[in-house]
């Protein structure tokens, strides 16, 4: 058994883009035999694939993640695209990378420093080398280390030759040449042949980590077999050649095959899932539980567009998608849809969410349900569109004119997005309020295994539209939830008018009365505050519920914080972890819980936004740990932060 805590399987998790029937893992077993003799057993490993955007790195990573998942190991991936669509070949800014952390224990992050780097050209090497663990294994395609490519990458001398990489174990292989040799049987051009480099690499890495090839060859056959059979053939040949190379070639010191035991998963059906997919599926599930159709209105923006793309394919599930002319039109159309009785959903990232704020105020004023998915990215302004950050908390909680409270939830991982999306739908429809779901670039793109829940066991929360006219007033409230009734236009006898001018309590008629405004402002606050009675009390993620230090996290810092706290606790430190899903309102016991610790440390990928809220609300001197480099925290950074705080 592993020393690290088992993953909490209560939170729903899950899958991939291409459809495939469910099946029992069998693929890995075949390979195990071959390697039995000399393989070393390890617990976990972090591998990063890197190359030119045109090298098919994301595909390689995705395929490897799939076979890893099927081999029963836990995993977490981190795709890191360049901002450019297709940067010129060989440039540093055109480098694409895919990192995967997998193992037999619970894997909660995509890993700090990779143990293994596969670099398909000099640019990929220079961009990634700094982050590799000292002593790590660097596999490079020496065939791509031409003078021209070295120069494009900014190397003065060939690093494979000048000793500058001494800290690492370098394994140069002329992958270009070996690939071309391997594909010579298939009738492909040199260019197409070289494109199979990624498959050769996948073959080699598959051998290293004890994976069979069948699943990938099947996939290649399925994808290209019919339309371009020679391409399928070439890819398969390269894949097999890479694998064979592992088995037959003489390996340098320390390079060998490894085995990793399957992780302990609860029984069930699994798939790997990104945050984008989980969010989309969660919204569909939530809507069905509420008995509503979805009208999803959005405007493309990186890294938020994915939700629009996924939902656009789910028309059969009563989902209408609408690509509007801009973000304002998108949120407005979503509000119009909610007004008409559908579930209005909109999504964007920081710059687009900023544009939506005025309209969100309208949804608050008219008390209509609305889901706003914010996939955060680095800013301010355009910032770094493909990089992650958690810096829209202020915008979500405070970013509107006047006193305008709404609900803010944060997903802590790809799979967790599913549950959060369902909860968002529940709260939005029950309380007639906009709900912001905070995700981020990392969560949107990272994949992890998810135990697919059985939808039949979900508790439905069907919306009851108001239909009877006796005593009807559009702003009369449910005494428990303080929600106003939701009426579908088309309902006879309930014709009424709503709007953004202040409305009289009850009748909803325009009112400039001062006392009424006070009353309405108060009730808008209380309605949201009261939701605290309808959400779970804050539980400890790990550790005792009082003590020296608690790490308070939210969103995608979940992985690194969990791991860091786990390590330090294993190390004997008395550290606890609380992870916040409900940003507004906060769980009722949170203040009291935090107060039981001497210190509260809040790691955030921003300059201290949750810290502000916690200090204000609970008068607890929470300390921030800030990182805004566009990259997730490393476990070690959190560990260092905790240690420093403990020592202070």
């Amino acid at each position, binding site marked *: 058994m592993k020393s690290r805590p088992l993953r909490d399987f209560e939170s729903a998790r899950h899958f*991939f*883009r291409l*459809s495939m029937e*469910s*099946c*029992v*893992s069998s693929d890995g077993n075949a390979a195990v035999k071959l390697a039995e003799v000399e393989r070393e057993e390890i617990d976990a490993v972090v591998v990063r694939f890197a190359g030119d955007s045109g090298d098919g790195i994301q595909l390689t990573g995705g395929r490897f993640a*799939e076979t890893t998942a*099927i081999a*029963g190991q836990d995993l977490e991936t981190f795709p890191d695209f360049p901002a450019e669509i297709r940067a010129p070949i060989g440039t540093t800014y055109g480098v694409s990378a895919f990192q995967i952390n997998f193992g037999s224990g619970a894997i909660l992050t995509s890993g700090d420093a990779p143990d293994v780097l596969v670099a398909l050209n000099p640019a990929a090497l220079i961009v990634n080398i700094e982050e590799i663990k000292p002593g790590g294994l660097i596999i490079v395609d020496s065939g791509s280390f031409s003078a021209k490519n070295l120069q494009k990458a900014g190397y003065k001398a060939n690093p494979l030759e000048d000793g500058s990489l001494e800290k690492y174990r370098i394994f140069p292989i002329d992958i270009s040449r070996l690939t071309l040799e391997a594909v010579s049987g298939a009738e492909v051009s040199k260019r197409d042949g070289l494109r199979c480099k990624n498959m050769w690499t996948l073959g080699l890495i598959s051998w290293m980590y004890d994976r069979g090839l069948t699943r990938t060859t099947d996939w290649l056959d399925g994808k290209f077999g019919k339309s371009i059979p020679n391409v399928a053939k070439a890819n398969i040949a390269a894949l097999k050649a890479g694998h064979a190379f592992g088995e037959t070639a003489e390996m340098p010191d320390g390079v060998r095959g490894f085995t990793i035991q399957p992780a302990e998963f*609860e*029984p*069930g*059906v*699994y798939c*790997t899932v990104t945050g984008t*997919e989980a969010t989309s*599926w969660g919204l569909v*599930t939530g809507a*069905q539980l509420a008995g509503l*159709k979805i*009208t999803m209105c959005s405007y493309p923006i990186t890294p938020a567009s994915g939700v629009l793309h996924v939902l656009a394919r*789910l*028309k*059969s*599930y*009563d989902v*209408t998608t*609408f690509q509007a*002319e801009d973000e304002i*039109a998108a949120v*407005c*159309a979503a*509000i*119009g*849809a*909610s*007004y*008409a009785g*559908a579930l*209005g959903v909109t999504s964007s990232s920081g710059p687009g969410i900023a544009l939506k704020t*005025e*309209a969100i*105020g*309208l949804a608050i004023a008219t008390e209509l349900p609305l889901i706003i998915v914010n996939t955060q990215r680095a800013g301010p302004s355009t910032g770094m569109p493909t990089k992650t950050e958690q810096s829209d908390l202020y915008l979500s909680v405070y970013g509107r004119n006047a006193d305008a409270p709404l609900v803010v939830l944060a997903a802590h991982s790809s799979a967790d997005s599913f549950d959060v999306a369902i909860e968002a739908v529940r709260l939005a429809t029950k309380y007639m309020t906009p709900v912001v779901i905070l995700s981020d670039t990392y969560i949107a793109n990272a994949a992890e295994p998810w135990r*697919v829940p*059985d*939808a039949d066991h*979900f508790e439905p929360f069907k919306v009851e539209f108001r239909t009877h006219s006796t005593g009807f007033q559009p702003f009369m409230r449910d005494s428990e939830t303080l929600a106003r009734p939701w009426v579908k*236009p*088309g*309902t*006879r006898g*309930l*014709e*009424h*008018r*709503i*709007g*953004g001018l202040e409305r009289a309590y009850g009748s909803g008629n325009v009112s400039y009365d001062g006392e009424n405004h006070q009353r309405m402002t108060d009730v808008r606050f209380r309605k949201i505050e009261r939701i605290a009675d309808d959400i779970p009390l804050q539980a400890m993620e790990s550790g005792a519920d009082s003590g020296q230090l608690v790490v308070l996290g939210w969103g995608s810092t979940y992985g690194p914080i969990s791991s860091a706290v786990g390590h330090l606790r294993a190390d004997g430190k008395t550290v606890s972890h609380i992870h916040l899903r409900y940003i507004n309102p906060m769980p009722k016991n949170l203040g009291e819980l935090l107060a039981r610790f001497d210190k509260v440390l809040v790691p955030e990928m921003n300059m201290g936004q949750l810290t502000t809220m916690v200090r204000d609300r609970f008068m607890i001197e929470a300390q921030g740990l800030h990182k805004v480099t566009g990259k997730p925290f490393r476990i070690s950074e959190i560990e260092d932060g905790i240690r420093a705080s403990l020592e202070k």
Partner: protein
Amino acid sequence: MNDSATAAHLSAKDFTSDQEIRWCPGCGDYAIVKSVRKALAEIGTPTENVVFVSGIGCAARFPYYMATYGFHTIHGRAPAIATGVKLANPELDVWVVGGDGDMLSIGGNHTLHVLRRNVDLNILLFNNEIYGLTKGQYSPTSREGTLSPSTPMGSLDHPVMATSLALGAGARFVARSVDTDQKHMPKVLTRAHDHKGASFVEIFQNCIVYNDGAFSAFGEKKTAPDTQLHVEHGQPLIFGASGNKGIRVNRDILALEVVTVGENGITLDDVLVHDETNRTLAGWLARMEAPEFPVAIGVLYCDPTESYEAAVMRQIEEAKEKKPAKGLNSLLQSGHTWTVE
């Protein structure tokens, strides 16, 4: 959604809400609300299936005065919100009301895209060539040189011509009316309603407080016959108190000109016959300005095609036929799954 049983009994009063009207005494909006109620009674869609969506401005107060569903939203965004309403429930009769500031200034982009997409909305632009509610600043339709609080030496921008812009954006139904014309407006409104797709109706509306008389060049009852041209599909473009003025094409300069039938050998045959499916003609009519020309009133252009939300629904039906949903579990398991036992 036309429920004929009730339709027969609907009167303008059925469309009148209990809210006291808050426009300035003498505002042209009063006449418009009257015409709209009358038109709706004639159209006969039951009140519960009618929705009025508006932005912000004097004009945008409109929904409060209609005993239908109504949504008074935010400045400029009514077309976008109405699009959402229609996407969520294509069965509703959705009307969009706004002023020239609301729909052509801050809301210009939404107006443009809703027209281009051809969402089945009936869009009523109350053009008073001024910002009424914010106390009289010039608007995108104000004439050059308009004196206003923000342009004390006169405005400098060239006004936008609403119908011209709508045609440029690809609108398939473009019409005009005048607030004072209680007879004509209901007819145009009914045509707008009957057109499936975006119907754009510009209504010249007098703001008695900030822009009184803006349309006096053609909007006054007594001079109307000589200054307005009521266009009707298939009918010659004839106007004038004595019914002898006409519009014909000057083929040399590719433009319209006013002629007098019976003078200089001009006969009725020389006069252009209105063809509301002709875009070029619509463009010409839209750009006729007083005093050189009569102002064209009526349906300038109408050339229907499938509406946006109808196409959306069609595509959803197709999707459902081709790949019917098989329940949530099938969705959640549609990826690469494996089983741990």
